[in-house]
Each structure stands twice: as structure tokens, then as C-alpha cells.
């Protein structure tokens, strides 16, 4: 399905929802929930259980859809809500506890054992490195490299300029290299 057709279908769904057709909302949830869940999972540091966040996003969407004017695509709009929900959730969680020691523990792991276990350790280390990035760097890294969004889309989502997104990506990469330099060398 082309992007234009997808857009017009989404607009039609929004229109149906505004007219009171609840099945349109079911369709929207069905269409975007997996993607939103994946993004929320990544932005929140791969906790796995993102049911609450996704539900919060759709609750906010349910309320806001009647006033949604369509300045951007429905997907972009839902992503923006999800990013905001993740920000507030992370902030609340950070207020409760900062578990920086976990990263140190992962970084200091013994690299002995079988290959699968070593790969898992390395992946966990990478995820931790992303997790401890400052919010503005973590968001662009997740959106660009894991969600595969274009720079323009990221600008629209975060409400920033192209230059700012590129600077954030550069700085995030620099930090990741500092943290994961040995892994990158091994891979190369």
C-alpha cells in the first residue's frame, strides 16, 4: 500500500471515529499498537512490559482524536504522544531509583563461557549504554537506528531542526563509542 493511500485510509478512520464509529478506533489500535509498543520498549530501556504505556498512549489518543486536525500523519501524532508518555514514565521511574550500578556490573562481566552467552552479555551491555544516554540523545538513537525513521520525521516528532537532530546523533554516537569502543573494534 502506498504512503498516500495509507494516509487517506488513516484520515478516513479518524473521520469515522469522529462520527462515533468505535470500530475505527479498534482498527487504529490494531494498526499502530505493535509499532508503538516496540518504540516504547526501546525508549524505556527494553523493560518488556510496555502494556501500560501503550494503553496510556491510546487513552490520550482516544481523547485527542476528536480535536486532531491532521497537521501531521496519525502515526507521527501517535509517536509524539508515545515519546511524551515515555519521557514522563522514565522521569517518574528515575525519581524512584537510579540503577547505574547495573551498567557497571554488565561492563565488568567476565567474557568466558559459550558464544551465545557472550553475545547476550554484549547485547545487554549495548542496551545499557543506550539506556544511560541522556534523554535527548537516547531518543534520536532509538528513532533513527532502531525505528528506522528519517531525519525529517524525527524533526517533526521531536519538534526540532535538522541540525539539532544531527548534532544529537553525532554526540550520541561519540558517547556510544566511548562506552562500546572494544565491541566495535571486535566487530570490525
Amino acid at each position, binding site marked *: 500500500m502506498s504512503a498516500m493511500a495509507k494516509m487517506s485510509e488513516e484520515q478516513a478512520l479518524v473521520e469515522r471515529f469522529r462520527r462515533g464509529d*468505535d470500530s475505527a478506533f479498534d482498527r487504529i489500535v*490494531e494498526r499502530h499498537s505493535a509499532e508503538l509498543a516496540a518504540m516504547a*520498549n*526501546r525508549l524505556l530501556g527494553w523493560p*518488556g512490559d510496555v502494556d501500560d504505556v501503550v494503553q496510556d498512549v491510546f487513552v490520550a489518543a482516544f481523547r485527542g482524536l476528536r480535536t486532531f486536525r491532521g497537521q501531521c500523519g496519525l502515526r507521527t501524532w501517535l509517536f509524539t504522544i508515545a515519546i511524551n508518555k515515555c519521557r514522563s514514565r522514565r522521569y517518574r521511574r528515575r525519581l524512584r531509583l537510579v540503577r547505574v550500578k547495573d551498567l557497571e556490573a554488565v561492563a565488568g562481566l567476565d567474557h568466558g563461557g559459550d558464544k551465545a552467552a557472550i553475545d547476550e552479555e554484549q*547485547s545487554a551491555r549495548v542496551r545499557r549504554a543506550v539506556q544511560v544516554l541522556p534523554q535527548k540523545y537516547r531518543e534520536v538513537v532509538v528513532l533513527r*537506528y532502531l525505528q528506522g525513521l528519517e531525519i525529517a520525521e524525527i524533526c517533526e516528532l521531536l519538534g526540532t531542526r535538522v541540525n539539532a537532530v544531527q548534532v544529537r546523533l553525532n554526540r550520541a554516537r561519540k558517547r556510544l563509542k566511548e562506552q562500546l569502543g572494544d565491541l566495535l573494534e571486535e566487530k570490525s
Partner: protein
Amino acid sequence: MSEEQIKKLLQEADVTARRPVFNPVAAGRIRQRIHRRQVVRSGALAAAAAVVVLAATLWIVCMQRQKPQAQQRIASLETQVRELQAQTNATLKLVQEVLERDRQERHLASLEAQLSSIPEPMVEIERQVDRTAFLLVYQADKLYKELNQTDSAVAAYKEVIQLFPKNQWADVARERLAQIEKRQINQSDKQGETRCKPGTA
């Protein structure tokens, strides 16, 4: 260590991470949640309204209990206010009277000052009389001494005595008349002596 390497590393880490747990057919649950929230919100609103109504009722009851006391207090306050108003009116009236009296006194003082600047009429008349009498005596003196018109001078002196008998210049006129008479007598005596002397005819 290119961007691609980092991307690959991140994607590998993402693949091995825990998959997000999310029920794909959760729209119904979301609607239930919204409905629940609406119920909770409306319940909270109802509870808040009930609390407000209760508080208002309690307040009204308290006010009704306090009403007689409040009314008495209001009545006493009204009386006090009326008394204060009467006192204020009396004081204002007094002040107005004092101011009016002061104004009148000042007006009187100014009138007296004006009056004092006007000369006394009798004194003025006396001054004029004195002046006229003096002028008549002066003219008579001139007639007698410089022009040697004794008859006219005598008539003028007599006029002064007749017109202003009590004036100081009337006394002067009398003295002059006496002098003139004395001189005339002396002259007539001298003429008689010269006629009577033998050898003088």
C-alpha cells in the same frame, strides 16, 4: 567505527532484547479503561459536589444558629453608628457656627478699619471753620497793615467776630479791633493837643 557499525550493533542488541508485551487486541481494554476513568472522574465530581453541598448546609446551619447574636450585634452597631453620626453632625454644626462668627468678626474688624480711616466730621468742620476764620483775619490784617484800608479791615474783623464768636481767631480779631481803636484814640488825642497849643494854629 562507522555509523553503520553502531547501527548494526544496536539492532543486534535490540533483536536479542525482550519483546514488548502488549495485547494486540487491546482496543476494548482501552475503551474500558477510559470508561472506568470517566466513571471515577464523574464519581469524584459527584463526591466533590456532595462535599460542597454538605459544607454549604453546615455553614447555613451555623449561620442560622449565630443569627440572633449576629442580629443583636448588628442592632447595637447600628445604634453606635447613629450616635456617632449625631455627634458628628453636632460637631460639624458647632464648627460651622465658630467659622461663621470668625467670619463676622473679621468683617467687623475690616469695617472698623475702614471707618477709622474716615476723618471725624465735627473735627473736620471745626478745622474748616478755623481755617476760614484765619483767612478772614489774615485778609483783614493785609487790608489794615499793607493797604491801609482801616474801615474794610474793621468790617472784616467784625465779620469774623460775628461769624465765629468762639473761635481763637475771633479773639485775635477783637485784639486787632482794640488796637485799631486805641490807635484812633491816640491819634485823635494828638490832634486835639496840637489844636489847643498856642502858637500852633
